[in-house]
């Protein structure tokens, strides 16, 4: 316990001591700038470190002098070739990669600003009143549009009135001043104080000219960002705290899930050699796991159970947690190994490229913290128990006849059933709240019902002595297959109904292979005396 506490304290200090970050609005969320950069480059360029730079360094360079990038080889085409923007611009290939569109937008916004200046100059020289010039310019180049379209990069400036975030490049805009009768640099359109805005604008210009470093502008933005607390009001895009930004950057920077999975794997490997080492590794893996799960829910402000990927993180965590929680079972290394195995498998699955691992806000229907916690965490939690129970049953049937192992199978099955039934009924109450009916045989509901039925039969049959330990163990395995279908099959194979948030396709052949193997195992266990 102390070790655990020390671990998290260490992480916390490490985070607070690291450099400060500023937020950038991208894809419905405010993200730490380097988290934004790596997501952006990954999505747009499909390259982890473009031109040998870190994503944020690369994006800073792009922001600074986009035109010098046009001719460089950095667009990855569909065929996997690297070509330059200039060469693609003249080709007739309609299948341009997103990076091409990025450059196109950069070019267009620069062009539109040039046009604006030219037009303004022409109007100033004409015989029009200042009022007319201002109105004419506004009608041709609406200010709002100019702010918005100044650049597709770095939306890091909070707008004064709209809760919208504007690109850094908007700082360079010139606007027509009615009193001075000429173009002047843009005034404060942000939520920041006048002095801070002027400083940001100055620094940004200097930075563009190469007189200031990347760190200088980043620090300045981060410092100013702290002022926003209290004056920024937008419920749509909540303001992350500086600590959240640091945490996000930290979360995105390293492949935590892979590390965790590797640690679990190591725990499995060491179980044959040293029980103590195995336990230590498992505990460390669990720390990592906890950290990444909590970081995720802290960043997204909701429990981490709203899509397939998140449930794949949550279920093994819960399984490991259960194993660690009970002092009685912690000593049994095979249980640790079982939990490590489950966690390793599921975490590996979560790395499938078909799953969206990004930090995204939820679908409107899931927008209820309370019900997410109550319904989804209960139901998905029950999956953890069932899977553990099934794995333990495998070991029990194949290798050992220990009663402790069997009682673990039985009890996790009981708790799983309890959670599943309670969670499903509460799901009905939630459905009555958001869909307007308690129960309507939606596939997910149906399969929750089917699994509950199966476990009810199992529990009754065992309780009244109709089946023995072997029967119950085999039942636990079959039950887990039903659960796997409820979890994966409904979303990926049936693909209809109202639980659409976790839908996807693919993996059918692997799933069938898994079912076949389990079928063989059940057959083997059945024959075995």
């Amino acid at each position, binding site marked *: 316990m102390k070790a655990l506490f020390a671990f998290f304290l260490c992480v916390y200090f490490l985070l607070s001591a690291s450099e400060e970050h500023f937020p950038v*609005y991208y*894809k*419905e969320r405010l993200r730490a700038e380097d988290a934004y950069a790596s997501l952006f480059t990954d999505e747009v360029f499909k390259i982890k470190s473009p031109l040998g730079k870190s994503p944020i360094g690369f994006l800073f360079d792009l922001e600074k002098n986009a035109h010098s990038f046009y001719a460089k080889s950095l667009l990855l085409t569909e065929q996997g070739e690297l070509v330059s923007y200039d060469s693609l611009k003249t080709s007739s290939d309609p299948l341009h990669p997103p990076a091409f569109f990025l450059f196109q937008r950069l070019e267009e916004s620069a062009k539109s600003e040039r046009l604006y200046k030219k037009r303004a100059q022409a109007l100033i020289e004409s015989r029009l009143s200042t009022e007319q010039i201002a109105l004419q310019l506004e009608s041709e180049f609406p200010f709002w549009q100019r702010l*918005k379209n100044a650049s597709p990069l770095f*939306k890091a400036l909070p707008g004064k009135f*709209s*809760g*919208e*975030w504007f690109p850094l490049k908007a700082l360079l805009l010139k606007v027509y001043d009615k009193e001075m009768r000429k173009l002047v640099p843009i005034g404060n359109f942000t939520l920041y104080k006048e002095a801070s805005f002027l400083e940001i604008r100055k620094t940004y210009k200097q930075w563009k000219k190469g007189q200031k470093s990347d760190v200088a502008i980043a620090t300045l933005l981060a410092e100013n960002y702290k002022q926003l607390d209290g004056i920024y009001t937008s419920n*749509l*895009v909540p303001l992350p705290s500086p600590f959240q930004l640091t945490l996000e950057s930290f979360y995105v920077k390293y492949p935590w899930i892979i590390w965790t999975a590797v640690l679990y794997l190591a725990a499995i490997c060491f179980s044959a050699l040293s029980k103590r080492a195995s336990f230590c590794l498992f505990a460390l893996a669990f720390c990592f796991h906890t950290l990444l799960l909590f970081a995720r829910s802290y960043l997204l402000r909701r429990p981490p159970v709203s899509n397939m990927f998140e449930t794949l993180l949550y279920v093994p965590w819960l399984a490991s947690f259960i194993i660690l929680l009970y002092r009685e079972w912690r000593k049994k290394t095979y249980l640790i190994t079982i939990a490590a195995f489950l966690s390793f498998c599921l975490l590996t699955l979560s790395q499938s490229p078909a799953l969206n691992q990004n930090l995204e*806000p939820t679908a*409107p*229907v899931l*927008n*209820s913290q309370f*019900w997410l916690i109550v319904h989804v965490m209960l139901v998905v939690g029950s999956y953890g128990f069932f899977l553990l129970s099934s794995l333990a049953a495998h070991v029990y049937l194949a290798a050992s006849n220990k*009663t402790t192992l*069997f*009682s673990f199978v039985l*009890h996790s099955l*009981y*708790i799983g*059933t*309890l959670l599943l*039934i*309670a969670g499903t*009924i*509460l799901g*009905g*109450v939630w459905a*009555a*709240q*958001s*869909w*307007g*009916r*308690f*129960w309507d*045989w*939606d*596939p997910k509901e*149906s*399969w929750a*019902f*089917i699994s509950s*039925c199966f476990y*009810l*039969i199992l529990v*009754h*049959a065992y*309780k*009244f002595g*109709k089946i023995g330990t072997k029967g119950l163990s085999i039942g636990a395995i079959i039950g887990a297959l039903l659960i796997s279908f409820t979890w994966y099959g*409904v979303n990926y*194979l*049936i*693909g*209809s*109904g109202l639980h659409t948030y976790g839908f996807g396709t693919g993996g059918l052949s692997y799933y069938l292979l898994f079912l076949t193997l389990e079928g063989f195992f059940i057959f083997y266990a059945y024959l075995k005396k």
Partner: protein
Amino acid sequence: MKHLWKFLGSLYLAIFLIACAAIVVMAGTFIESQTGSHLAAEKVTYNHPFFMVLLAGFFVNILVSALHRWPFKKKHFPFLLTHLGLLLLISGVFLKNLFGIQGQMLLWEGSGSSRLFIPHSFAIQVKKKHEDLQGQIPLSSFDPRLHFCKELPEISCRLVGYCHDVKSQLLCWSDDRQLTLFGIPPLTFLKWEPQEPLPKGIFSRPCPFYPDSHIYALETDKPEALIQALFLEETALLLFHSSTGEKRVIPIREALESGISYKEASWQIKLNTSFTPYSLIIENEQGGVCYPLSGSHALLIDDSSSFFPFEIDIKRPSGTLAFCKGEKELTLIGIDPYGRLYQATLPLEKPDSYIAYDSGFQGYGTSVCLPFPNFPCGRKEKEEAYKQHFIKEFEKAIFENQPMDPELYSFVKTCQKNGLNPSITLQKLLEEWKAQGRALYLGAIVSSPKEDFTPLLSYWKQKEPLKKDHFLKELNLEAPLRIVLKEKAEENTLENQTPGIAVLFEKGEKRELLHLAYDPYGMEIKWPLFNDYLVSFTALQRMIPHHLRLREARQICYPDSSTPERFESDLLIKNFSNEESFITLSMNEVHETTDDYRFYLSGITSSKNGDINHIRLAVNKDPFKYYLTYPGGLFVSIGAFMLLFRRQKKDPQ
């Protein structure tokens, strides 16, 4: 008896029932996945009587197995609690299905309703026109017996036909196959090629807007040819020589072919329908005059020169209204009995304006002015009207000393410029006019050069006297919202199918056959029946004691993105005692009234073309929820928890 009692509460029965239910449900999900239709799965599984029997079996089994433990002891408590919970849960669901309400309501922005529709049910709604009398004939299945309407006992109906899916666009006012106009039965669009004769008999319908007129619905990509064909149909030219008094009637086809001859001279007649104003052109080697057929100057010749000695009138036995469907637009062509031609283009896809009556018609409407006045308005009548108006205007300016119109003023100026006395010239002008016995033409006054009176001409041109009120009759077209004409894939899923029925209505001696397409929420046009009633084929309808009006529905997106963050709708809700309150519904935020009605926002759809949103509200009334279903769920959870805990202590193997 004892055996039966034992069997009913036995574990085997329980296991058998649970297994059966699980298998049925499993089959249901696979059927749903295969057909893509929840409804289809529901029909063969969850809503099947067999499944109901299973549930009832459950109920009996649980009850009896609990009674087996009689007399109850303390140790039975968790078991009893769990099973009592299950009983409550099942009975709650059953009672809700029997006595509760689960319905849907569809509201367009601006519209209000207190009608609830029970999904996947069928009924024929009959409404007496102009009266608030409304009845409903529920249809449980295709049942060809005679059905009576409780509220309107004089009406009865018999189902004579049924189809699973009519194309959902059947009810639009113009679609691939038929034309629908407010108040008359739909008309099939016929393909028409130039040179073909116009369809007769059942393919044209008497037009209710004007006596003796006909309506055609034709599909062609050459509207000009159609105008020509329609115009030539039964039209004759009436020629009148004003000085000799000679009269002639020539069918227009003949006139076009052989021309008109009088004494030595002969004239060619041409019909121009390729550009507006449509006109008859009368010409020979010396020149030509134009006899306009459309526009504000229709039927009035612009030139009174003695080039053509006849006055022309056009005579047709009746007016004609034709809807001509082209690729992108619908052209409405109207020809009145005097030969006046009118054309309007109605877009097929982009509607004009949106109309929502109180819980009645919701759709797009457009109004077109048609040259179908209720009184004679041939050339002569029109000229007379113009003349009256002209004189009146002059009198007003001169005798009543009213400020001169700019055009009149310029007339006076023109006279002065030419050295003429304005009042004398005016008198001359009027005399000339009277003598001519026809409309005031350009250059009617001999002494003045033509051009100088252009302002005068434009004066009455601009005024266009009596235009809307007297000459044109307004025709209102109202169409339900779906006007889009795109190729449609076959609908396979039960949910997306629109069933259709053919119903024979009877009222005393009268009989009328109607084909009705299913319109679950009663949003489409109602069909007239026996001239006194309106009918529609909807879901079973139920009135609730609340009236809801949708003010606004919105989808709130994240800035700079089209990803929705939440859906909201503002509603005004009026209860039975007429107290009005304002509520905002969103997903996960429901409204519950004091009498147990709950309203949920279950979906927002915005129509593609415009900004009119509609919302779907799920409405239910489930008074048993708080007494049976939820406590049942709670008992089951607590009971199961206690059962498991106790077992852990009691038998550690």
